[in-house]
């Protein structure tokens, strides 16, 4: 009996096995790696183990003992020889900027020093920073295997001298404003998509079948066009010497020297992203509208409601599952959107994902990139849970 039951289940499991393997390898594994990387960084701890062990007993204020200096210089020299010192110096530098050159230079000099009376004197004479407590605190912090510093960094927080967490001074805050901007822009794009997409979905849902198919096709064409082609088309249209500006100048609406900058700024990002994401709003809304029998509107009219009244009280509430699904989809897609802002966003139109890409590719601060990515993921999950609480996820209709 149990065997008979299990057999179809086994077969079903076997059918999705390739897919499961694929998802595991391409989605779950990278995700876990990323989450791990945002909190786990053994590089410094592995390279300077003894120094860190000695620093463990240090009071954090005074200059450390001679033993610390001696061990540190030994481990730095050894790390320089096996070429891991650069990576260590980079990590320490991220905690306290300026220390990279201090470490590299000291190691180069110390390499030649064979015998000294006091390693402390020797190191301080190479770089006076070694005499300051904050240098050693920076090494200590960079040496944490499990660390919150990437998250603190990603949220513009820092530890002050006595270790408590405080906000960065306003002029040094980068990520929080960017995160706020990303959320605001995403919200704006979602609203724009709704304003543009809802009437379109209504038109399609109520058109005769042939025209509805044609309109639907037009909605889908952007889907089938390369993202790059679409984005560069916007450049052609919106740039200072572009079609729109040329037309406006030709019509005499603006002067030639006052051409409007509509691209390589936030306007460009919003316009191009709204265009790209519009189908994700139209399709779920349309599919919900199609299931609403026209009878309801007739019934409302027979009960004396004008079209606006019937729409507001009868039609609109019934489309909410589609509106919710579409909005959630557009919002989630836009807070993680990368390529369009990268191409047409210029300086002011960058979003958090562009910053993640920067840390992945340019600054190679993968821990920070991972922390930023996790925060973004957290936003999406929070939004999803909120939607579930307010609307109920089972009421969502994706199509």
């Amino acid at each position: 009996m149990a065997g008979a039951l299990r057999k179809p289940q086994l077969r079903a499991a076997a059918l999705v096995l390739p897919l499961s393997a694929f998802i595991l390898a391409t989605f779950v594994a990278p995700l876990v790696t990323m989450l791990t990387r945002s909190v786990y960084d053994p590089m410094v701890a592995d390279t300077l183990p003894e120094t860190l062990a000695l620093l463990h007993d240090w009071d954090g204020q005074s200059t450390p003992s001679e033993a610390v200096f001696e061990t540190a210089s030994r481990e730095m020299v050894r790390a320089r020889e096996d070429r891991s010192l650069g990576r260590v110096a980079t990590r320490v530098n991220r905690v306290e900027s300026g220390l990279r050159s201090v470490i590299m230079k000291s190691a180069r000099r110390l390499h030649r020093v064979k015998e000294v009376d006091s390693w402390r004197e020797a190191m301080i004479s190479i770089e006076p920073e070694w005499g300051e407590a904050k240098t050693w605190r920076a090494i200590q912090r960079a040496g944490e295997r499990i660390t919150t510093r990437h998250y603190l960094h990603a949220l513009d927080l820092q530890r002050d001298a006595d270790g408590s967490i405080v906000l960065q001074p306003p002029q040094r805050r980068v990520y929080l404003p960017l995160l706020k901007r990303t959320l605001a822009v995403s919200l704006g794009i979602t609203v724009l998509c709704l304003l543009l997409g809802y009437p379109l979905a209504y038109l399609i849902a109520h058109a005769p079948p042939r025209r509805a198919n044609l309109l639907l096709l037009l909605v889908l064409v952007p889907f089938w066009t390369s993202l790059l082609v679409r984005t560069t088309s916007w450049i052609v249209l919106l740039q200072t010497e572009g079609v729109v500006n040329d037309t406006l100048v030709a019509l005499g609406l603006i002067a030639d020297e006052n051409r409007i900058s509509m691209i390589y700024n936030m306007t460009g990002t919003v316009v191009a992203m709204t265009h790209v994401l519009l189908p994700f709003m139209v399709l779920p809304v349309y599919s919900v509208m199609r299931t609403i029998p026209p009878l309801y509107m007739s019934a409302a009219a027979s009960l004396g409601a004008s079209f606006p009244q019937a729409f507001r009280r009868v039609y609109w509430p019934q489309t909410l599952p589609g509106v919710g699904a579409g909005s959630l989809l557009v919002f989630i897609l836009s807070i993680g959107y990368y390529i369009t802002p990268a191409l047409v966003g210029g300086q002011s139109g960058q979003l958090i994902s562009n910053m993640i890409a920067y840390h992945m590719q340019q600054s190679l601060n993968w821990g920070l990139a991972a922390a930023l990515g996790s925060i973004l993921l957290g936003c999406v999950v929070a939004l999803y849970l909120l939607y579930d609480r307010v609307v109920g996820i089972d009421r969502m209709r994706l199509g």
Partner: protein
Amino acid sequence: MEPPVNSSNHPHVEFEHVSKSYDGRTLVVRDLNLSVAEGEFLTLLGPSGSGKTTCLMMLAGFEAPTSGAIRIDGRSVHDLPPRKRDIGVVFQNYALFPHMTVGGNLAFPLEVRGLDPEQIRERVRRALELVRLGGMEDRRPGKLSGGQQQRVAIARALVFEPRLVLMDEPLGALDRRLREEMQFEVRRIQRTLGVTVVYVTHDQQEAMAMSDRVAVFEEGRVEQVAPPEILYEEPERQFVARFIGDNNILYGSVVGVDGDFCRVDVGGGIVKAFRIAPSRLGDRVAIAIRPERVSLAPKPGVYHNEFDARVEDILFLGDHLRLRLTVCGHSDFIAKIPNIVGHGAVLEGDQVRIGWLLTDCRSLEAPGQE
């Protein structure tokens, strides 16, 4: 709710030469003339696709007639959109708003009319009591049984006190028992309020049970409009004779005409019948005879029509026997004989004598013959 008022002596509703075509070629409603009196319960009865719903939708304002005029209280409603016609409509699938409570559904027509909340609550309460659903305000329509939903739909169509209510097969989705109960209920409500009701059904028993008058539809045409008894006793068209109750139909040609009567040769004999269709000598006609008006072993000389018949089979149905006979070469002639003779008085294969009155026998137009 207030009694209906009709200051004029116009009929409440009039269809005048109304035709309707959806595609510009086939007429779904053909030259319809119909009037409904104030407070009347008129049923449109007909087979599927005969244009009943179309008539209702034209009256409610959701479809426009292709030609002809529809009048309410003597005024053409051509330019009046549905929301201004003040007609209660009960749709076939209820069309209750699923996202509103029962109370919300009922309050909706009152809210769009701008009544104050206190008044709305009172009217909703009374309307629900009228359909015996008092206290159900907070339920969701989806959580109600079919019969309850139907009552809510009726209450919603009545709550804003229209003088005219249209119902399109409102009981179609209900099971038999509930349906009979609801027929009674709808009739009671209509009588209580005195509203005019135009009701659509394709169930003839329902039409007979509820209506003041019934309009029988066939392919977009009204075949006959009459009170149920008249429709049953005096069908004027063959379609009506076949559609309402059971009828034996014999075809034949007219061999004698005598004022209101005629004699028809049905092959194996001459039948004397009421001459309903204006037929002349030699015309083909259809003779309709109700099975329950056929008598067994009639006293000689009493009946105008007497024939020999052979009993093909017998169905014993308790209070009556249903005989299938061969008469004048027609083998599907049915006679319903009340069970006063007892079981076994007639047997299969018996030769019997049957008869019926001239007045129970109507000669109607035959197909392809007008």
